[in-house]
């Protein structure tokens, strides 16, 4: 199930809200767990067992880790590695086995069977959450969760189950044990959810249509303008789609008394690639920094090791997004950019470049990176890169210009929408005329109304972050 569907909005959500708030507090984790499993199993019930198995193993192995952590650190470490191995084994099998088998089978004398496995929804997200519990527990950053329902709720909590934000265990440890929801919390959650829904359905999906249009047009009559348009529409779509979904998740969490970490902070206004990754999919970057980069040594111990650590993180980041060469190359593209910024240009020199120029260059390289991200077929990626610089195509055609003209209002709204300007404007107006706060419920209702209209028209695209 996805948030941007009629069945979620008008069946699942009212039902879970009703049952949750009618139940005594001590049952609420159980209610969320049951509804989350229903949410997860909606399209692919067979994978519920896999998820339950994964979190049950981590839950059970948490006890010896907590028990031996202080007295027998080596034993605790062994239990931790066992828990991580179990978590990672299902991720590796379902996500990477076929890719590995296909790749190795290309070598002489290797013939490994390919199973054609379908990827369990959200496996990368919940595996990382489980691992964060195990590691936090071993490090002593979190306490043992004895309540099975509470732990199951942490892993399977439907607002963030299939597309994040990736919540580290210690961030919600206390909230799993005790939380309350005020009218203010609930209403802020509603506002955030409606904003996310509007971003996803009213901007993200139409931008996706624009991208698909230009991408497909390249196969019939390629043009440089069409190639640039496809790159820009895709990049904007990805932001509104994913950040909209994150907003919905954060908003839903708030309605149920959880405070999830932020996942985006206007990434397309970043002044460098390093800055971009502080603003894009923040919870994933944080996870890798905390559980991979820093344990490997981080920025310490010389440039050589720093580069190695960076390379490991970006190799894993690429692979996390998908088991295909394009994702790997996408990770390497960012490794290259970040290395150039860090080791060749240097932070100080970079900051001397005027901000508008830095932003323009950052947008350009990030958007070009997303071209790699959007297409698994590498020859197609290569051809599209060629079209961007006018190889084997004309500059534009009359249909490109027509389509760009009619999509210009959408593009303009999207371009402004990915900057802090709308939020600043609303805050400033609210400060000047206090009555504006009354408009907020109306804005929520309008978002819901129009999103419903777009969903009723079936003008939505499957959520892309599903398969990561």
């Amino acid at each position, binding site marked *: *199930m996805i948030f941007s*569907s*009629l*069945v979620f*909005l*008008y*069946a699942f*959500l*009212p*039902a879970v*809200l*009703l049952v949750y708030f009618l139940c005594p507090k001590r049952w609420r984790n159980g209610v969320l767990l049951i509804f989350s499993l229903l949410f997860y*199993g*909606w*399209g*692919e*019930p*067979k994978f519920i067992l896999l998820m339950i198995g994964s979190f049950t193993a981590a839950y059970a192995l948490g006890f010896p880790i907590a028990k031996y952590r202080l007295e027998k650190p080596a034993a605790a470490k062994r239990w931790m590695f066992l828990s991580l191995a179990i978590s990672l084994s299902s991720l590796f099998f379902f996500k990477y086995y076929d890719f590995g088998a296909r790749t190795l089978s290309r070598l002489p004398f290797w013939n490994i069977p390919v199973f054609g496995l379908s990827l369990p929804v959200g496996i990368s997200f919940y595996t990382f959450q489980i691992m964060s519990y195990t590691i936090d527990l071993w490090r002593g950053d979190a306490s043992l969760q004895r309540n099975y329902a509470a732990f199951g709720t942490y892993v399977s909590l439907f607002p963030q189950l299939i597309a994040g934000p990736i919540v580290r265990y210690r961030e919600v440890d206390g909230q799993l044990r005790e939380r309350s929801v005020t*009218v*203010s919390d*609930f*209403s*802020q959650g*509603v*506002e955030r959810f*409606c904003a996310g829904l509007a971003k996803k359905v009213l901007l993200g999906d139409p931008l996706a*249509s624009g991208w*698909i*249009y230009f991408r*497909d*047009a390249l*196969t*019939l*009559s390629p043009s440089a303008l069409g190639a640039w348009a496809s790159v820009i529409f895709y990049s904007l779509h990805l932001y509104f789609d994913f950040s909209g979904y994150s907003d919905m998740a954060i908003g839903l969490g708030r309605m149920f008394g959880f405070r999830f970490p932020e996942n985006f902070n206007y990434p397309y206004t970043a002044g460098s690639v390093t800055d971009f990754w502080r603003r894009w999919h923040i919870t994933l970057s944080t996870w890798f920094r905390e559980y991979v980069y820093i344990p490997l040594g981080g920025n310490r111990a010389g440039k050589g090791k720093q580069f190695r650590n960076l390379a490991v993180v970006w190799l894993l980041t690429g692979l996390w997004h998908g088991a295909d060469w394009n994702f790997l190359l996408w990770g390497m593209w960012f490794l290259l950019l970040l290395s150039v910024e860090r080791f060749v240009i240097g932070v100080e020199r970079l900051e001397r470049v005027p901000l508008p120029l830095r932003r323009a260059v950052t947008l350009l390289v990030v958007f070009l990176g997303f071209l790699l991200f959007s297409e698994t077929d590498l020859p197609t990626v290569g051809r599209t890169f060629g079209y961007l610089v006018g190889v084997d195509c004309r500059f534009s055609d*009359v*249909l490109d210009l*027509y*389509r760009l003209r*009619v*999509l*210009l*209002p*959408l593009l303009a709204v999207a371009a402004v929408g990915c900057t802090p300007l709308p939020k600043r404007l609303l805050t400033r107006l609210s400060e000047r005329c206090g009555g504006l*706060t*009354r408009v*907020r*419920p109306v804005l*929520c*209702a309008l978002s*819901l*109304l*129009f999103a*419903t*209209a*777009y*969903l*009723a*028209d*079936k*003008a939505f695209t499957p959520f892309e972050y599903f398969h990561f």
Partner: protein
Amino acid sequence: MRSERITAILFCAFLLCFALLFFLFPQSSFSLSEKRALQTKPSVSVSSVLSGRFGKEVDDWYADQFPFREMFVGLKGAAEILEGKGENNGILLGRAGQLARVRFDMMKEKGIVPDADRLNKEHLRAIAEGVNRAAANARVPTVFLFTGRSIDVAASSFGYPSVDPSALLREMFVADVVSPNISAVLRERYEAGEAVVYRTDHHWTTLGAYYGYCEAMRSFGMEREIIPISAFTPVTVTERFRGTFGAAGGMKWVKPDKIDVWTFPDDGDYTVFADGKPAGGFYTFPPEGDPIGYELFLDGTHDVVTVEKTGEKRPRMVIFKDSFANSLAPFLARHFDLVLLNLSSARKDYTDLTATAEAYNADCVLVVYTVSNLLTSDTAARFR
């Protein structure tokens, strides 16, 4: 605090209200405006739940039976137009409420390119090769009437940079191919203010079909036998026709079309059989209360339709066709016994025009196929 409370209450009320209305509203199994079966309440079984089919069916059930669905679709259509797109779901809104589809699932060597508005030159070449091949093989007079898309005929109503594919195709046809330029004829009439295509549907009107009839007759060298317009009596059978563009575009404010049938004194002398069963004449009216649509002509879609005049033996014309021929047939039936074969049939492949025409003892052959169908299928590329 007050506005926070209002936000929370409004949100919950909105959700609960529609959640309840979904179950309270009467549900239907068929959408007349979309002409398709709707998903009804799915049945639960262990296997359907475990396979995920149940979840998918519930999703479809909600999407199909959602309360005020048509109103929401209209709201979305209005939002898209107000946003300056000028179109919704690939349906363009032109002057005076003229609608036209501009995006099609274009055929390509490997599969299709969905929702595209570009022409695939290779596919056009393949179509031309098929037509050239069929024309060269033909043993009886054969005419290809490739009816234009609304966007080509009503181009003057839109600021859309349309390229008429039939013009490109004609350049690729060899001299043997007899293919009147019906798009140009209809475009000229449209620009003169005549309603030759529906505003809310992809078909030609009865007047448009009449011009198609005139062009076909001229192409067969029978110009003198064309029955003048004045010999027919137009009868308006509905003024509330909302066709395929109207349904897909969601532009509820566009005025519906009227459908005319042109009657002729000897209409009662013709027998029409659709897939072997009597169809009751040129026009089949739906049950009282149901909207009248283009299916009125020759009882809608059938694989084989025959039209004969009682007690008279006449030359036989085999028409390889899509639905455009249904409103054309009543005109041609004044001169020929007709066998209409559906080129889009899922059961039978009629693309071997020569062999099929021989099997039906054709005296002449007419191919009536829309340009949009040419572009979105490989039917013509397989002509022999």
